[in-house]
C-alpha cells in the first residue's frame, strides 16, 4: 500500500495520468505497438495519432529476435521491425523525438537482452534523458530484478512488473512492492494476442491483486474489443490493448491509413473505458 503512495508523490507522468483518471472516475487505455513496425518514422506518427485519440499511456515494444511471451501478431511485428533495422538505440531516439511533440506517458516494453547489452546504467540514463517514463521487461521478475530496479529508479523511471494468474498471493505482494507507476496484470495464462472472451477467472484474480496494492492496475493480454474494456470497469484502472492495434498496422495499405485506423480503434476503446468505472469509484 505504501508503495503506490510513494510513487504517486514521485509524480511521474504515468502516476499523474492515473491520478487524473481516478479523479474523473475514468478507466484508462494503455496502447501497445511495436516500435519500428514498419519504420520508426511510422511509429512516431502512430503514437501521435493514438495520443490524440485518447490513449492514456503508450507502450513502445522494443523488437527482439526471440519474443517468447508473444503470440503470432507481435512476433510478426517484431520481425518486420528488425528487418527494417530497428535497434534499442533507435527506439530511444524515437522517444526523444516524440517527447518534443507530446506529453503522453511512454513506457518502453522490452525483453531483457537488448537492455542488458546496452548496459543497465547507460540504458536508464539515455531512456530518462530521452523522456521515457517507465520500463517493463517481459522476462525480468522482481526476483531477478534488483540491479535493474536500482538502475531505473536512480534515473526516475517507473518499473512496471507483470502479475499473472499463476502468481501466488506472496508473489503478488512482491510484484506490487517492486512496481512503480502501475501494475500490469496478465488476464490469462498464455502469450499476447486477441481472444473472443476474457478469462472467467479474471474478476477473482483482479480482486486478489487489489488486496495487495493500491497501485493502478492495468489488465492486458487478449483485450481487443470495446466489450472487453467495458467488462473491466470496476475491476481495473486501465485496459492494455496490443495485438489488436498491431494487427491494424499489419492490415493497413499505407502508413497514413494505419495511423487513421489506430486512431479510430483507440477512440472506440477509450469510449468504452470512459463508460466503465474504475475500482476506485466503486470503492469510493
Amino acid at each position, binding site marked *: 500500500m505504501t508503495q503506490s503512495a510513494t510513487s504517486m508523490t514521485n509524480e511521474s507522468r504515468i502516476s499523474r495520468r492515473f491520478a487524473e483518471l481516478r479523479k474523473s472516475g475514468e478507466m484508462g487505455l494503455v496502447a501497445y505497438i511495436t516500435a519500428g513496425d514498419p519504420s520508426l518514422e511510422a511509429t512516431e506518427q502512430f503514437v501521435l495519432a493514438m495520443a490524440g485519440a485518447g490513449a492514456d499511456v503508450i507502450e513502445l515494444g522494443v523488437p*527482439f*529476435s*526471440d*519474443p*517468447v*511471451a508473444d*503470440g503470432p501478431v507481435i*512476433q510478426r511485428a517484431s*520481425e518486420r521491425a*528488425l528487418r527494417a533495422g530497428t*535497434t*534499442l*538505440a533507435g527506439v530511444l531516439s524515437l522517444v526523444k523525438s516524440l517527447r518534443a511533440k507530446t506529453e503522453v506517458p511512454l513506457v518502453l516494453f522490452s*525483453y*531483457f*537482452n*537488448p*537492455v*542488458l*547489452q*546496452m548496459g543497465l546504467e547507460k540504458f536508464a540514463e539515455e531512456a530518462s534523458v530521452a523522456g521515457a517514463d517507465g520500463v517493463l521487461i*517481459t*522476462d*525480468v*521478475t522482481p*526476483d*531477478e530484478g534488483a540491479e535493474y530496479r536500482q538502475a531505473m529508479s536512480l534515473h526516475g523511471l517507473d518499473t512496471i*512488473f*507483470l*502479475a*499473472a*494468474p*499463476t*502468481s*501466488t498471493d506472496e*508473489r503478488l505482494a512482491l*510484484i506490487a512492492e517492486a512496481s512503480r507507476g502501475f501494475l500490469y496484470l*496478465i488476464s490469462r*495464462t*498464455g*502469450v499476447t494476442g486477441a481472444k473472443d472472451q476474457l478469462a472467467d477467472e479474471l474478476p477473482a484474480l483482479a480482486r486478489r491483486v487489489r488486496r495487495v496494492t493500491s497501485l493502478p492496475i492495468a489488465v492486458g493480454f487478449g483485450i481487443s474489443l470495446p466489450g472487453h474494456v467495458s467488462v473491466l470497469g470496476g475491476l481495473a484502472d486501465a485496459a492494455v490493448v496490443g495485438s489488436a492495434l498491431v494487427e491494424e498496422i499489419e492490415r493497413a495499405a499505407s502508413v497514413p491509413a494505419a495511423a487513421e485506423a489506430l486512431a479510430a480503434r483507440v477512440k472506440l476503446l477509450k469510449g468504452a473505458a470512459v463508460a466503465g468505472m474504475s475500482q476506485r469509484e466503486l470503492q469510493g
Partner: protein
Amino acid sequence: MTTAPQIWPDAKGRFGPYGGRYVPETLVAPLEELEHAYAEARRDPKFQKELDFLLKNFAGRPTPLQFASRLTEHLGGARIYIKREDLLHTGAHKINNCLGQGLLAVRMGKKRIIAETGAGQHGVATATVAARLGLECVVYMGAEDMERQRLNVFRMRLLGAEVVGVNSGTRTLKDAINEAMRDWVTNVRSTHYLLGSVLGAHPYPMMVRDFHRVIGLEARDQILNVEGRLPDLLVACVGGGSNAIGLFHAFLGHAGVKLLGVEAGGRGHALGEHAARMAAAAGYSGARPGVLQGTYSYVLQTPDGQIATTHSVSAGLDYPAIGPEHAWLADKHRAMYTAVSDDAAVAAARTLARLEGIIPALESAHALAELIVRAPKMPRDSVVILNLSGRGDKDMEILARYI
C-alpha cells in the same frame, strides 16, 4: 588429489554469475513447483529406485566403456576409451533425462508433456518415455530440422507423439524452444515442459545435469576398474551441453582430469556461420554473456542484443547459447572449450565407422574430430574418455552426401 567441489548452483539457480530464472511471471510459480517437486523426489528412495529400474531395464544402463583399440593404434598417442551412450534405447544419452523428468511429471500429476527437439533425439526419447508412462506428448521441432532429421519425425509419430513444425525465426532448435515455452505458458497447469538440455531457467540446468550425472559416475568406476586410475582427459561435444556435463560432473573434484568441450565450428569463423560460444580464442566471433530463454550465459548475438543465427551440420549443436554451468566452468578454467568444422566432424564419423565399426551421431563426431587432432600429441600411457553421446542412424541422409 580429490578436492570437494562446491555444489553449484546456489539457491537462486546461479553458477557464479550465470544461470538464474529470466522468464515471464506466468512461469515463475510453475518453475517453483517443479523445483520443490524435484527436491522432494531427489530425497525419495522410492523415486530413485523406480528411475534406476527404468534406466537399467528399459534404457539399457549401464553403458559399456569400450577401449577403442584400433583408433588408439591409428592415432598413436593416448589410450582412447569410448563411453557408449549411443547404445542406449532410442540411440542417445537423452533418455536418461527423459526418464527422470517423465517420472517427475507423473509425480506432479501432469498428464501432458511437451518438448523441443533439434536433431530429434530428445524428441524421440521424450515420445518414448511418454508412451511408456502413458502421457500425452507434443514435440516442437524447427521446420529445417524436420527436413534434415526426418527419420526421427517418423519415429516420434510412430510413438504416438504430435510433432509440430516451427516456421518462425531460424526454423531450428532455438525457435522450437520459443514455441515450447509459448505452449507451456498457455497450458502450464496441465503440462510439464520436458526441456532436453542443461539450458533454460532454474531448476532445469541443475536437474537435467543431475539426471545425466550417471554417465560420469559409471565411467569413473569403469575406468578405475580397467586402468586402475583416473583418466587424463574427458572429451564431449557441447550444444546446450547435457552429455558433456553428464560425463564431466563426477570428475569435477578430480583436478588432474582435464575437461574438454567441443562446439560446432560450422563452416567459418564469422557470426552466423558457426555455433561456437566459448571458442573465441580459436577465432569464433559474436559470443557475449546475455539472456536467452530463461538463463544468463554466453550467447551468440549482434552488438545490439539480437540473437544471432547459427550454423552446424549437426542439428543438435546448432544453438546460440551454452548451458550456464559450462560458462562457469570455462570462466574458472576448470573446463576448456574449442570448436571443429562441419567437414572435420563428417570425416571423423567416417574414421570411427571404419576403424571401430561404430557410426556416431554427427554431434558426437565433433568431439571425436577434436580428439583425432589431440590424441597423437599425448603420451602413449595417457588415458582419454570420449563421450559417444549418440548413434548416427538419424544422420544417414546427410552422411550419404559425403560418402
